[in-house]
């Protein structure tokens, strides 16, 4: 498991070096004394385990004589502000007529100077963005998601329209799964036609996803890139084990962005990003997808992975300074989201809430762009964002919450 390379690595090395040099000294001198501590040779023979540094605190000095205090001891609080040497790249998704595309509006993500919603220390320049999933053929969906799309599932253009016009999707994530040789084996050319139709049906930017078939995806994405030339779509995705070079070339030639996908491994993520940069893509043309697992099914890994990537980028690791894509609609893979169960209560509420909580966690950990499935999640998250960005005035008073909660 490679996602937790020790941040304490240097520490350990230091400690090991110290022990080694002590051991040498002891060989020469027998037992020795450093700063009142006596160490015998045999004590240094155990192998130093990896250990975690613990912070020391100034001892908590409470006044010995507790006096009667009449007035408040006033003190000041000053926000603990930090600055980071690095900044996340800004990525523009979609292109308007004036920059070579036909979208009505573009979406910008990334550009962070601090961790998500640390607005006391810096304002991140762009909002988080939300895409909704559309498939190029009817697929199996959780009942509570499906009920909103049943009548448009046979037509991806209508499906996309429903997402944009009725549910406020800012981006459409079009998944060309019918191209999978084991599903319908639709040709790359036919898939490209679907892309064209969706581009005409809606005026928001597009994420274009393959079927996940490693051999075929590069060709599908290449054909899609060509018909969408100049639209600054996101091609989803380049992996270490598919022909990522072909995808990168298509993105460069036709002016798109590439998703660098790795399954939960920060070192592999770095490696893939590096490879894509070496292909001549700029940081502004890459979005990273380190894998989003659902709440209860590995969300803990996703959370720590995103935090580490975002922190590393802010601290100056230029291989990790790209915005993060969180495929939070993976939440629907969790049984708790879709399965009927007396014990867990009605799935109509439980499902979208599962997606909402997964999304909030990924938002707080460092995600920039999210894929969602349920209209309720989109609505809730957009409302929440307006609050978190300080755009909504309120005179909420909580001083009397103890007496004012209803029953």
């Amino acid at each position, binding site marked *: 498991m490679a996602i937790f390379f020790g941040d304490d690595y240097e520490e350990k090395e230091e400690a090991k070096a110290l022990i080694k040099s002590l051991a040498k000294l002891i060989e020469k001198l027998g037992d020795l004394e450093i*700063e009142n*501590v006596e160490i015998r040779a045999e004590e240094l023979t155990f192998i130093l385990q990896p250990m*975690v540094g613990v912070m020391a605190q100034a001892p*908590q000095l409470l*006044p010995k004589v507790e006096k009667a205090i009449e007035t408040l001891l006033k003190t000041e609080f000053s926000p603990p502000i930090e600055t980071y040497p690095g900044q996340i790249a800004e990525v523009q998704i979609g292109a308007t007529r004036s920059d070579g595309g036909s979208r009505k509006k573009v979406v910008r993500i990334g550009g962070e100077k601090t961790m998500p*919603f640390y607005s006391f220390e810096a304002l991140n320049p762009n909002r988080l963005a939300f895409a909704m999933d559309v498939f190029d053929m009817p697929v199996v969906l959780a009942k509570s998601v499906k009920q909103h799309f049943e009548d448009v599932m046979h037509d991806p253009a209508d499906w996309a329209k429903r997402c944009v016009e009725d549910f406020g999707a800012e981006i459409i994530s079009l998944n060309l799964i019918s191209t999978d040789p084991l599903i319908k084996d639709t040709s790359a050319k036919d898939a490209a036609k679907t892309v064209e139709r969706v581009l005409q049906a809606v005026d928001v930017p597009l994420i274009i996803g393959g079927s996940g078939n490693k051999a075929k995806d590069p060709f599908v994405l290449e054909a899609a890139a060509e018909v969408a030339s100049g639209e600054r779509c996101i091609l989803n995705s380049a992996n270490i084990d598919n022909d990522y070079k072909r995808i990168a070339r298509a993105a460069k030639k036709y002016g798109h962005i590439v998703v660098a996908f790795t399954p939960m491994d920060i070192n592999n993520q770095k490696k893939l990003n590096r490879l894509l940069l070496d292909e001549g893509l700029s940081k502004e043309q890459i979005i990273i997808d380190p894998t989003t697992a659902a709440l209860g099914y590995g969300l803990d890994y996703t959370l720590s992975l995103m935090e580490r990537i975002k922190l590393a980028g802010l601290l100056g690791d230029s291989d990790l300074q790209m915005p993060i894509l969180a495929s939070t609609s993976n939440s629907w893979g969790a049984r708790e989201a879709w399965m009927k169960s007396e014990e867990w209560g009605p799935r109509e509420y439980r499902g979208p809430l599962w997606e909402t909580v997964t999304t909030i966690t990924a938002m*707080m950990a460092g995600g920039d762009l999210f894929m969602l499935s349920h209209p309720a999640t989109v609505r809730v998250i957009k409302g929440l964002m307006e609050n978190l960005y300080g755009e909504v005035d309120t005179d*909420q008073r909580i001083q009397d919450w*103890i007496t004012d909660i209803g029953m």
Partner: protein
Amino acid sequence: MPEKVTLLSVYRFLPQTNCGECGEPNCMAFASKLLERKFTPENCPPLKKPKYKEQMAKLIELIAPPIKEVTIGTGNSIVKIGGKEVMYRHELTYHNPTAIAIDVSDTMDDGKIVETCKAIETISLVRIGETLKLNMVAVRCASKDPDRFSYVTSLVARSCNLPLILCSFDPKNLKAALEKGQVANKRPLLYAASEENWREVSELAKQYDCPVVIFAPNNLTLLKSLIKTLQAIGIRDIVMDPGSYTEGKLLKDSINNLVMIRRAAIQRGDKDLSYPIMAVPAIVWMGEKQDPITASYKEAYIASLFMNRYADLLIMHTLEIWALLPVLTLRQNIYTDPRKPVSVEPGLRAIGKPDEKSPVFLTTNFALTYFTVANDLESAGINCYLLVLNTEGLAVEVSVAGGQFNSSNVKDLFLSSGVEKMVKHNKLIIPGMAARLKGEIEDSTNWEVIVGPRDSSQIKGFLTKYWA
């Protein structure tokens, strides 16, 4: 910046006799385990002798986590909160999962109060072999009547065995609950000392040695001043409530406040703010009639937001399972050890009452995988054997991709488990996601391998088709 505690600085306070009573070869090894939090100073028996009293105290102080651990309750009814050491969980496991309290109002009728207490105590959901539960009851004085509040407090204390939070901004009510309500000896958490009432509330906290919350909504200077004052009075067990706004711009401020105080404590070593943090998602229920579904939904995601931003204690209102399940699951996720997957013992398990004709299934020892599969088999009423493969605690697809799920491993499991003697057939059902190992496993075990469904919830249907 606080300085790092080193191996030597810890070693200095140990007896340095290398007696081995702690189970370690010597004191230096023990010191290293202390730093890794695998041991506490108590694990060194000699250190508990009177002559080391001072050293013990110094050692405890030296390795104390930056966020104080506060204990609420007594005896077998306690909750520990705080004790945090890091800002980000990849640095070190978070300790003491966020405690969740549910509120009870003293304006509810007695029957309803007892019923609610019982519900809070009995709600439990098993996930991955762990029982997820609510932890506390917050008794609200909404009646503004000290007699009613003290009566209800004692009724709650008699109806369940969970630690209590006594909620009122009027010290007279808190006093009544502690004394007439007879819960003073249970060490409830007093909610709350504020700018107006800190003198009286801190007096109560001191007199009855109770932990106390400081409430300073959206005012960190006030929060810090109040803490300084209470510390000077001699109060040690403090919980901070910087105000849980759930709407508009103020929600943004609340999130910022939580990050600022945690960072000040951990990264700047600010002793005044080195206490556990609490938040009150129940505030979404304020005001006239709320739609219970909308409010439960909102409360659940506000709770998740606060839990993602360091809340060590939450007061919630909803008792809807569909709303609590995601919150409890998030807590379980955030508080797992990021350094090792949760796993179970590998080996052979009997599910139900298997006989020599029963099917044999294979799965991995990742706790989530094992418990999901075992649970599915049990609830479908299938009598069978389940072989649990040591994949180093990884799920099926992950371990197939990473190589821990392999045919020689399966063969070893066959030999060590003695499964061949348990049944009179030689058919093994493997997970659908391990399909590509079918041939290999057949070669290594000489059994016939049947590829099962991809999801274990489909095993029942599968068996009726493929198992005579």
